[in-house]
C-alpha cells in the first residue's frame, strides 16, 4: 500500500513541532531549523513508498532530522573555520547581567552543552522519550544515552545551584 497525501500528513507533517524543536536545539537558529524541517519533509515525501516498511515512523523522522542537522553543522564548520557550535563554557559577566532571567539562563546552559548531550537531554526532558527511542535516534547504545543524559543533567545542576545561591546572596545583602 502506498502512502498517500492524507497519510503523509497524518504521519509526517503532524511531527513538525517535534522535528522543529529538535532542529532548533541542534542548529540554535530558528530560520535554519525551519529550512531543515522543510528539507526533511521533501526528502521523506520523495521516499514515501519506502516509509511503509518502517516500524516507528516518528523515531525514524527524528533520526533523519538529527542527521540532516548534523550535516548542516558540518557544512557550517567547513565554510567558517571558527566553530559556531558553542561548546560548554562558563558565562562571562556581561552575559550574566544580560540574561538575568533564570529561565533564559537555563536555556542558555542547555544550549551550551555539547550537541549530543543537549539533544539527549531535550528529547528526554522536553519530549518525554524512552531511552530506547533516543538510542535509535542518536545511533548510540542505551547505556551511552544514560551516561550522556546524566552528564548533561549534572552539568546543568551544578550551574543551577551556583546561580541560585548567587541570586539568594544578592537578595539577602540588599
Amino acid at each position, binding site marked *: 500500500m502506498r502512502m498517500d497525501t492524507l497519510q503523509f500528513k497524518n504521519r509526517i507533517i503532524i511531527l513538525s513541532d517535534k*522535528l522543529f524543536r529538535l532542529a532548533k536545539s541542534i542548529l540554535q537558529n530558528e530560520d535554519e531549523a525551519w529550512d531543515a524541517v522543510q528539507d526533511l519533509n521533501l526528502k521523506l515525501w520523495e521516499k514515501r513508498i519506502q516509509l511503509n516498511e518502517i516500524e516507528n515512523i516518528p523515531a525514524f523522522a527524528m533520526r533523519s532530522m538529527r542527521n540532516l542537522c548534523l550535516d548542516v553543522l558540518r557544512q557550517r564548520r567547513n565554510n567558517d573555520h571558527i566553530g559556531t557550535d558553542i561548546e560548554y563554557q562558563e558565562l562571562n559577566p556581561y552575559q550574566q547581567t544580560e540574561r538575568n532571567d533564570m529561565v533564559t539562563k537555563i536555556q542558555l546552559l*542547555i544550549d551550551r552543552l555539547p550537541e549530543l548531550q543537549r539533544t539527549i537531554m*531535550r528529547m*528526554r526532558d522536553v519530549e518525554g522519550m524512552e531511552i530506547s527511542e533516543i538510542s535509535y535516534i542518536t545511533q548510540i547504545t542505551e547505556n551511552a544515552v544514560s551516561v550522556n543524559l546524566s552528564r548533561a543533567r549534572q552539568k*546543568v545542576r551544578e550551574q543551577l545551584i551556583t546561580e*541560585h545561591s548567587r541570586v539568594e546572596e544578592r537578595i539577602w545583602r540588599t
Partner: protein
Amino acid sequence: MENINELLNKYFSGTSTLEEEKILKKYFTSEKLTTEHQAYKPLFDVFDLEAKVTYPPANQKLTNKKRFHLRTFLYTSSGVAAAILLTFWLFGSPAMQSDYAIVNGTRINDNEIAQQMAQEKINKVETMLQGKLTPLESLQTVKNRLEPAKRIFEIKNDILDIKHKLNFE
C-alpha cells in the same frame, strides 16, 4: 518530601523512569515548593516552556529574506538608474538630432568619435555592472527556484484541508 529528594537524585544520575520524571515535573510546576527545592523550579519550567514551541508557519519567519530582497532591489535599481543617466549624459536627450559628447568641458561634434567614446564608456560600465550584479542575479535565481519547492507543503496542506472539508459535507 523525602520521596522527591530520592527522585531528584535518581533524575540527576540519569536512572529515573519516565513515570518518575512525570511526578517530578508535576511537583515542580506546582506552587507548593519547599525552599530547598526552589532552586530546581526554573529547570522544570524550561522543559514545560520548550515543549510548547511550535513549528512557525511560513509567513511568520525569515525576516532576513525581506532584507535580502530590498538590498537586491537597491543594487539593481541604482545600477539601472546609473546606466540611464549615463546614456543621457553621453548621447544627450533622444530628441537631439546629432550625437556629440562633452569631454573635459569641450564639446565634440564629430559623430563617429563621440559614438566611439560613448561605446567605450558603455562597455566599461557594462563589464563593471555585470561583475557586480551576476552573483546577486544567480542568488536570486536560486532563491526563486527554491520558492515553489517550499510552497509544496503549504499547498498540499491546503488541498488536504479542502478535501477533508469536502468529505465531511
